[in-house]
């Protein structure tokens, strides 16, 4: 009993430690491990995917920048293309309850179906713990983690920070470039870019 109590306390303390500080994730450093639950109730740890490339995509279905990439089908195409090549694609929802982009598990599943989206999983992060751990600021914001668990890309999906779907064609897609270069064993040319979009709708501090 006593042991359980002590473990319970340890969990609370560590959760409280993570929340107030944006953990500085840096490219070319190990990506912090996390535990998160997806819209089907399954648990995912980053460490489950050692040996694979992992993409983290911050999303908010109401954000006009996110909508640009879903209504055009661009995000779905990227998800399909990269997961077909063995990449683990985790879409993350860090909107707090009551804020734009917050979804229950069943709402998210319906949305994924409606949009014909193909992430490996959609992680529900209503407390913002995962978002704060990675310092995610916008939707969409993209991270790429290599098979050794090193963060190799942090930033925007492409170089056109607009809400206009016409800007997708001809844009320099930083995510594709990062994955192509990293898979070819090359250093990523643009490892950090300014993520553009709406602010992530975290709970008020």
């Amino acid at each position, binding site marked *: 009993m006593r042991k359980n109590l002590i473990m319970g306390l340890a969990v609370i303390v560590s959760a409280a430690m993570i929340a107030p500080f*944006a953990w*500085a*994730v*840096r*490219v*070319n450093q190990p990506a912090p491990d996390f535990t998160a639950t997806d819209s089907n109730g399954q648990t995912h740890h980053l460490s489950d995917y050692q040996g694979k490339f992992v993409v983290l995509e911050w999303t908010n279905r*109401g*954000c*006009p*920048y996110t909508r640009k990439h879903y209504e055009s089908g661009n995000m779905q195409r990227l998800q399909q293309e990269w997961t077909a090549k063995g990449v683990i694609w985790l879409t993350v929802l860090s909107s707090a309850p009551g*804020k*734009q982009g917050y979804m229950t598990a069943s709402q998210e599943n319906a949305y994924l179906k409606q949009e014909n989206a193909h992430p490996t999983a959609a992680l529900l992060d209503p407390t*913002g713990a995962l*978002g*704060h751990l990675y*310092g995610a*600021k*916008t939707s969409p914001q993209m991270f790429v983690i290599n098979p050794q668990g090193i963060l190799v890309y*942090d*930033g925007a999906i492409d170089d056109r*920070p*607009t*809400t206009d779907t016409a800007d997708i064609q001809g844009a320099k897609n930083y995510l594709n470039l990062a994955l192509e270069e990293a898979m070819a064993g090359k250093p990523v040319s643009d*490892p*950090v*870019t*300014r993520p*553009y*979009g*709406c*602010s*992530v*709708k*975290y*709970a*008020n*501090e």
Partner: protein
Amino acid sequence: MGVWFRVEKGWHIYWKNPGDSGEPAKIQWELPPRFHVGSIEWPAPERLAAPSIVDYGYENEAVLIAPMRVAAGLKNGEKETIAANVNWLVCREICIPGKAQVSLTLPVSSVVRGWKGSASSADVAMLIGARAKVPKPLPATWKVSATAEKNDFVLTIETRKPERAATFFPLEPEQIKNDATQLATPFSRGVRLRLQKSDGLLKPIAQLRGVLELGAGTGRAYQIAVPVRAVAAENR
């Protein structure tokens, strides 16, 4: 020429560098032949804080002005129409993109009369007010220098008197951590301002460019572009 944005209470639009999120307004001018327009002269922005982020922009209202040169050989009394296609993003909790086409037809006059006639004196006052909000060049007698430490940049601003408060707005993204507190330390000849480096900053930078505001909300804003000197690593 200026475009006046009236923003509903609680909402904001963005500066040239929007900070952690958002997007600056865009103006595409449609001008009569041989008219020329320069780029937007952005007024000094405000820091706009939300959970975990800081953006740079404007609440309530903003006038974005651009210098314009008219064609030679225009005749008095002729009318010319200047139009602008304006795109913007306005945010509060959520963001909404907007666009509008606006236009203004003004008579040609070789006499400067404070735009009497088609434009009211209120318009003139607005443009003068907008110009006053554009950051000024640094006075020649002032000195600004910057050093790079391990985690911070330190800006030293010498105005020859103690300055209580200072805020830096970076023009480049991913140089400073936007949501970090900027620590201002006054001294006899000015103020030192400590800026935390961005987590995304991977290489040393040659210069810090941006807007420096002295005091808080005083309208004393200056354009700076200062070389960054690396401080030698401390001996341990």
